[in-house]
C-alpha cells in the first residue's frame, strides 16, 4: 500500500473505508480528481420516510407559520390557538426535520465513494455558514447545503457565491430578508430600513476577507445594493425573490464602482467581489489551511491565489491545484480532525453502521460529535466552525474522544483482527507505537479504542 494512497484517503478524503487504500494506491491524485467528475453525492433520508423538501416549500411553511403567529396575537384568537394547524406542526417538527437532514448527511459521509468531493461540500458549506442555532433558519440549512453548495463545488466561485447569498437560509440567517432600502417606497412608507449583517459578512467572511479593503460605508452600500433580496411569498421553487419596492433606488457607490439597476446591481456587485484580488487571496489561504496546515506555506497559498485569479475562480481548478501541491503530500499529518471528521473517519474505518438499528447508530455518532463540540450547519457564529487544531484540542473535547473510542470498542465483535483494520485504514501512516499498543491490548475492543484514540487517527 502506498503512502500517497493513505494520504489521499485520509487528508483529502474522509478516512479510508475498507478497500479504499487499494483503490487509491495506484494513482492517488487521479483517484481524487476523478471524484470531481462524477455527480456530487445527495443525502438520502435514513428513516425511509418522506424525501427532503426543497427550500421553496420550506419557506412557504415558515411564512405560513409566521402569519399564524401574527393572527394569534390579535384579540379573540382563541379558536386559532386551539386548532392544530400545518403551521403548528411546522413549529413542532422543525428540530426533527433538521435532525433528519443531518442524519442523512452523516450517513452519506460514512459511506460515500467520493469522499474528496464530500469534503469539498463540507468546506464550502462551512465557508458560507448558515446555522441552525437561528430558529428561523433551522429548517432551511439542510436545503441550503443540498441546493446552494452541492451543485456548485466544481463550478465558478461567483456562481457559488450567488447561489449561497440568494438562498433563503442565508437571507434569513444574515437578516437580509427583512432589510429595506430607506428611500424605497416600502422604506418611506414604513420607516423601516437597512440591516447590514449580510453586507458585512459577505465581504468580511465570504469574499474579500477582513483586511480585504472595505469600509463601513462600503458595508452600508452593499447592504443597500442587496435590499429587495428576500424570501418569496408566493411559493417560488427557490424560495428567493427580488422585491423592487423594497430596493434602495438610485446609483450606489461600492469600493469605487457604481451600481444601479435593481436586482442586477446586486448580481454585478457579487461578481465583482468574487473576482476581486483580495477574494483570491482570502480563499487561497483558507483552502490551503484546510488541506495543508493551519499555518500553510506561503508558496502554496501563492499558487492557489494565482490559480484562482488566472481561472476566474474555477473551483475545480483550485481543487486540482491543491491536489498537485507537493506540500499537501508531506507524511506529517498537520491537521487535527474536527469532531465531525473524526467520528466520520471512525465509522468509515469500521465500515459502520452495519447490522441492527441503523438510525439509532447514526444518531449515536451525531450525539458524540455534538458532545465533542461540533455539529454540522450549527456553528455558533457566521464565521463558521474553526479550522485550526486549537479549537478541537479543548481538554474536555479530547477526553470525550477517548471516552467515545472506548465505548465504540466495547460494542465491536471480540474476535476482530484490529491490526488488519488498522493497516486497512491507515496503511503506512500507522505508527510502530500504535501497532505495538494494539498487539499488547487485552482485547479487541480496547485495541480499537487505542487505534481510534491514536495521534495518527486524531490527525489527517
Amino acid at each position, binding site marked *: 500500500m502506498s503512502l500517497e494512497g493513505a494520504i489521499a484517503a485520509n487528508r483529502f478524503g474522509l478516512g479510508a473505508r475498507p478497500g479504499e487504500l487499494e483503490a487509491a494506491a495506484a494513482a492517488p491524485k487521479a483517484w481524487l480528481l476523478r471524484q470531481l467528475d462524477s455527480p456530487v453525492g445527495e443525502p438520502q433520508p435514513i428513516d425511509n420516510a418522506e424525501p427532503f423538501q426543497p427550500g421553496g416549500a420550506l419557506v412557504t411553511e415558515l411564512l405560513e407559520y409566521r402569519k399564524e403567529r401574527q393572527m394569534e*396575537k390579535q384579540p379573540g384568537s382563541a379558536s386559532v390557538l386551539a386548532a392544530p394547524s400545518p403551521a403548528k406542526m411546522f413549529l413542532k417538527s422543525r428540530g426533527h426535520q433538521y435532525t433528519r437532514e443531518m442524519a442523512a448527511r452523516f450517513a452519506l459521509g460514512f459511506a460515500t465513494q467520493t469522499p474528496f468531493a464530500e469534503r469539498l461540500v463540507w468546506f464550502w458549506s462551512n465557508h458560507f455558514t448558515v446555522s441552525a442555532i437561528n430558529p428561523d433558519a433551522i429548517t432551511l440549512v439542510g436545503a441550503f447545503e443540498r441546493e446552494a453548495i452541492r451543485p456548485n463545488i466544481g463550478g465558478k466561485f461567483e456562481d457559488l457565491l450567488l447561489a449561497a447569498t440568494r438562498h433563503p437560509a442565508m437571507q434569513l440567517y444574515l437578516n437580509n430578508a427583512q432589510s429595506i432600502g430607506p428611500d424605497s417606497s416600502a422604506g418611506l412608507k414604513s420607516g423601516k430600513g437597512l440591516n447590514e449583517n449580510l453586507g458585512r459578512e459577505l465581504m468580511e467572511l465570504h469574499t474579500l476577507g477582513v483586511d480585504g479593503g472595505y469600509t463601513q460605508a462600503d458595508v452600508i452600500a452593499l447592504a443597500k445594493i442587496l435590499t429587495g433580496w428576500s424570501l418569496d411569498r408566493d411559493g417560488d421553487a427557490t424560495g428567493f425573490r427580488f422585491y423592487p419596492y423594497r430596493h434602495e433606488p438610485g446609483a450606489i457607490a461600492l469600493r469605487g464602482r457604481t451600481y444601479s439597476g435593481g436586482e442586477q446591481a446586486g448580481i454585478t456587485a457579487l461578481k465583482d467581489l468574487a473576482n476581486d484580488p483580495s477574494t483570491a487571496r482570502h480563499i487561497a489561504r483558507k483552502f490551503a489551511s484546510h488541506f495543508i496546515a493551519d499555518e500553510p506555506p506561503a508558496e502554496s497559498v501563492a499558487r492557489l491565489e494565482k490559480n484562482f485569479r488566472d481561472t476566474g475562480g474555477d473551483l475545480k481548478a483550485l481543487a486540482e491545484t491543491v491536489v498537485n501541491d507537493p506540500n499537501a503530500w508531506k507524511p506529517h499529518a498537520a491537521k487535527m480532525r474536527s469532531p465531525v471528521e473524526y467520528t466520520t473517519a471512525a465509522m468509515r474505518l469500521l465500515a459502520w453502521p452495519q447490522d441492527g438499528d441503523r438510525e439509532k447508530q447514526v444518531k449515536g455518532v451525531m450525539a458524540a460529535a455534538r458532545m465533542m463540540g461540533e455539529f454540522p450547519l450549527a456553528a455558533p457564529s457566521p464565521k463558521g466552525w474553526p479550522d485550526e*487544531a486549537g479549537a478541537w484540542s479543548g*481538554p*474536555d473535547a479530547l477526553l470525550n474522544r477517548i471516552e467515545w473510542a*472506548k465505548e465504540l470498542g466495547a460494542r465491536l465483535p471480540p474476535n476482530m483482527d484490529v491490526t488488519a483494520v488498522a493497516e486497512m485504514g491507515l496503511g503506512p501512516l500507522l505508527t510502530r*507505537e500504535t501497532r505495538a499498543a494494539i498487539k499488547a491490548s487485552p482485547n479487541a475492543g480496547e485495541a480499537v479504542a487505542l487505534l481510534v484514540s491514536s495521534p495518527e487517527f486524531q490527525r489527517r
Partner: protein
Amino acid sequence: MLNRRSVLRTALAASALGVWDAPVRFAFASVPTDRRLVVVILRGALDGLAAAPPHGDPDYKSVRGALALETTGTNALHNLDGQFGLHPSLVNMKAMWDAKELAVFHNIASPYRERSHFDAQNVLETGGVGPHALNDGWLNRALKPMGLADGEGALAIATSPPLLLSGGAKVSSWMPATLPQPDADFLGRVRALYGNDPVLLATLDSALDTEAKANSAMDDKLSTPAQYAETYANLSPLFTGAGKLLARDDGPRVAVLDVGGWDTHVNEGAGEGQLARRLHALDVALDAMKSALGPAWTKTAVVMATEFGRTVAPNGNGGTDHGTAGAAFLFGGAVKGGVVNAEWVGLKPSALKDGRDQPPRTDMRALFKGVLADHMRVARRDLDTAVFPDSADVRPATVLFAA
C-alpha cells in the same frame, strides 16, 4: 498544594504500565491572584422586571397586568428597598442581599439597540459596540491583564468555550462526564501513545488534571446521558462543578456558565409558572455554587447578565417580547452589596424606549469594567482599549468590593 504531577499520580496510580515514572518537568504555574470571577450568561433574554420587580413604582401593577407579582401572601416577592424586589423564586439571592452580598443593576443594556438574540449575544460577549465587529470575547482579552493567559486560569463549563471566553488566550473547558471514564490502565496506554505528540499529550494531561480535580472534589458526577438531559431542569451539577473547581488553590480563577431558557414569549407566568420554575432552578444552582466554593466564596464575584430585556407590558400570549434594557446582578462574598443601581425613570410609556422597552440608562460594559477593575485589578488603560475597544467614554461602574 496539589500540583499537576501529584494529581495525575492520584488519578492514575493504578497504571500497570509504569509510564508515570517518566520525569515530569513542569510544575503547576502559581496562580497570580486568589480572587475568583464567575460570569453567568442568561441566553434568551431574561425578563428583568420579573426577576427584579420595581414594585414601588406607582405604575408597576397597572403596566405589568397579569405578570405583576404579589407583594403580600405566601407567594409574595421579596422586598429589597421598598422600591425594588426579587422574584419569589429567588430565595437564596434574597439571602445574599440580606448578607449585603448582592447588588442589582436595572435599566442596564449593552450598546446593542436592535432586538435580535444572536446579534445581541454577540455584542454582549465580544464587548464591541455592534454585532460581529470583533471575533473574540472580552473575557478572553481580559485574561492577559489579569495574568491568567496561560491556559489554566480560565474555565468554561462547556465542551468548547463560548464566544465570551474564546480568543487568543488559552482557556480550559470542563463538563460533567456523560460517558463512563475509562479506567486508569487504559488512559495510561493512551497517554503512552501520545508520547511523541506534545499537543495531544498536553491536552490530555490538562483534561485529566481538571477531571482529577473534579473527581476528587465531587461525588455527584453525571454518569448517564439521561442525567445529562436532566441538567436542563437541574442546573446544580454544573454550578457545583464550577464552584468546586474554583475553590481549589490550584484551580481556575475565572469561570463562565451559560444558562438558556429565558425567552418567555408565551405563558411567562408571575409568582408561579414557567419563568418561576426556571428562576428557581437558577437560584438553587447559585446557592449550590456558593456552598461548593466554601471559604473561597469570600474572594468571589459573580456577574450575571443577559443579552437584552423584555417588553414592559405583557404581549397577547401572556408573555413578553424582545425589549432593550433589563436587569443584571453582581453578587458574591467579595461584593459589598445591598444596593440597587438604577437610574429609574418610571414605567410610564413616555419614559420607555419606543414606548415599550426599559430605557438603557447604564452601559453593561460599565458593569463589566467595574468588576474587572475593582475585583480583578485590570488597569483602566487595558479596559478602555484591549478589553473593550474604544470604550474610554464608558466609565467603570463604581462597584464596591470588600477589602
